[in-house]
């Protein structure tokens, strides 16, 4: 009988059946085994011996539920390997993993939903806050403007003049003239809306002739305010008047005077 190496088939057959050959030794013996019926019988018998070693320990009682678990695995047709102690079988690991992933996903979705909701609320609050801040800024600017206007008209040397007109309700314009700065503030009230493409235009009457000044449109409330109106620094400013002109203004009045007031030095 031929055999690999210096050992007899009987030597290797017993060790092979017992699983005591290295991978390399096993491959070499299997090549020999394929051509030896006698060696195959030897191995088959030693396998029976090896299998009986399972009975070397005391007999045990199987858990009653193990049979069902075996059949469940068979029905599932799962091709799985056994996992180490302290761990869980791969299926359970996978299940646990999926459950963990599902839980994490649900948690993430819940968290995301919460975050989205929270972010939505925060965004809404931010918008509200921004709007309120904008309104507050507007109020602040209005107050500052009013304060500036108040300060301007309260400046020493500022004189108030009234431009009046007839009508029902009667419109009017207050003209605060700061002679030191050659500036004026005008405040109109109960002013009617002007036709499209038109505006009220202020005229100073200097030396008996109208000098064109600013144009303005009233708010829906009928009020209008124009600050820092330049007043001619030279000549005799005797009066101020208001007409309706094209909104770009006119060098000369093109319509009847609507409001007029004398500007006399006090």
């Amino acid at each position, binding site marked *: 009988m031929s055999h690999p190496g210096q050992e007899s088939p009987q030597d290797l057959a017993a060790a092979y059946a017992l699983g005591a050959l290295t991978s390399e030794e096993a491959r070499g013996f299997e090549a020999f085994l394929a051509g030896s019926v006698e060696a195959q019988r030897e191995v088959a018998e030693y396998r029976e011996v*090896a299998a009986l070693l399972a009975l070397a320990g*005391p007999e045990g009682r199987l858990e009653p539920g193990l049979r069902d678990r075996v059949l469940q695995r068979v029905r599932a047709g799962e091709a799985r390997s056994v996992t180490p102690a302290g761990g869980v079988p791969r299926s359970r690991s996978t299940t646990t993993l999926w459950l963990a992933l599902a839980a994490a996903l649900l948690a993430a979705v819940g968290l995301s939903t919460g975050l989205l909701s929270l972010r939505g609320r925060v965004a809404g609050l931010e918008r509200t806050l921004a709007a309120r801040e904008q309104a507050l800024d507007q109020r602040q600017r209005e107050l500052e403007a009013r304060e500036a206007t108040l300060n301007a008209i309260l400046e020493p040397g500022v004189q108030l003049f009234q431009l009046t007109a007839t009508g029902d309700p009667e419109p009017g314009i207050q003209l605060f003239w700061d002679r030191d700065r050659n500036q004026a503030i005008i405040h109109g009230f109960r002013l009617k809306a002007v036709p499209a493409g038109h505006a009220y235009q202020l005229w100073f009457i200097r030396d008996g002739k109208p000098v064109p000044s600013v144009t303005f449109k009233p708010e829906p409330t009928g009020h209008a305010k124009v600050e820092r109106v330049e007043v001619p620094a030279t000549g005799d400013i005797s009066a101020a008047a208001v007409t309706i002109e094209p909104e770009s203004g006119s060098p000369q009045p093109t319509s009847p005077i609507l409001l007029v007031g004398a500007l006399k030095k006090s």
Partner: protein
Amino acid sequence: MMQTVPFDPPLPRSLSPRGCMAAALGSPQNADDRDLIVRSASGDERAVGALYDRYGSVVYAVAYRIVGQRADAEEVVIETFAQAWREAPRFDVARGSVAGWLTMIGRSRALDLVRARSRRDRITAAAAEQPGGAPGMGDWRPDPSHSVDHTERRVQVQRALQGLSPSQRQAIELAFFEGLSQSEIAERLQEPLGTVKTRIRLGMQKLRESLRPFYFERGT
């Protein structure tokens, strides 16, 4: 006595649709092991149940001896029979008995498990020094449902092992239960490789002579 092994080619699963053949084979409880393999290959789950009834405790015993923990041993049993179910169409009778096949599958799966986990959890060589004294089995008790053959086999196996020299028994158990090669056993025991080979060869020859009448192949 040399056991005769009839040539019986593996049953192609494609030629034996599961369920069809099973119905024609009758109750699996009265079938022999090879019939149960044929039934398994044909899709009869009851055949796997019958195999478990016969050899579940054997597979569990070897698994427990190797892995040392009940939960792991049970998982090895489950995987062993699941693998048997999958590979039943390829079962080769020339390679040995069904019980031996199942036992070796269980041993391989158990060793895979042990190799995959930390070495500190392994059953150590101390177990090999105390044959028949597998640790952690105090909650085991005889199962009256087991066949008398298993009980008789167990007695004979333990007696045969006691008939070996301690060094032969140790070398064989290190190979079977710990999956060590002869070279690894020599290294573990600080013995010459040739000495270990001789111990295994002579020990297995003794066991073969002692246990031949009790091979699984003779049925339950």
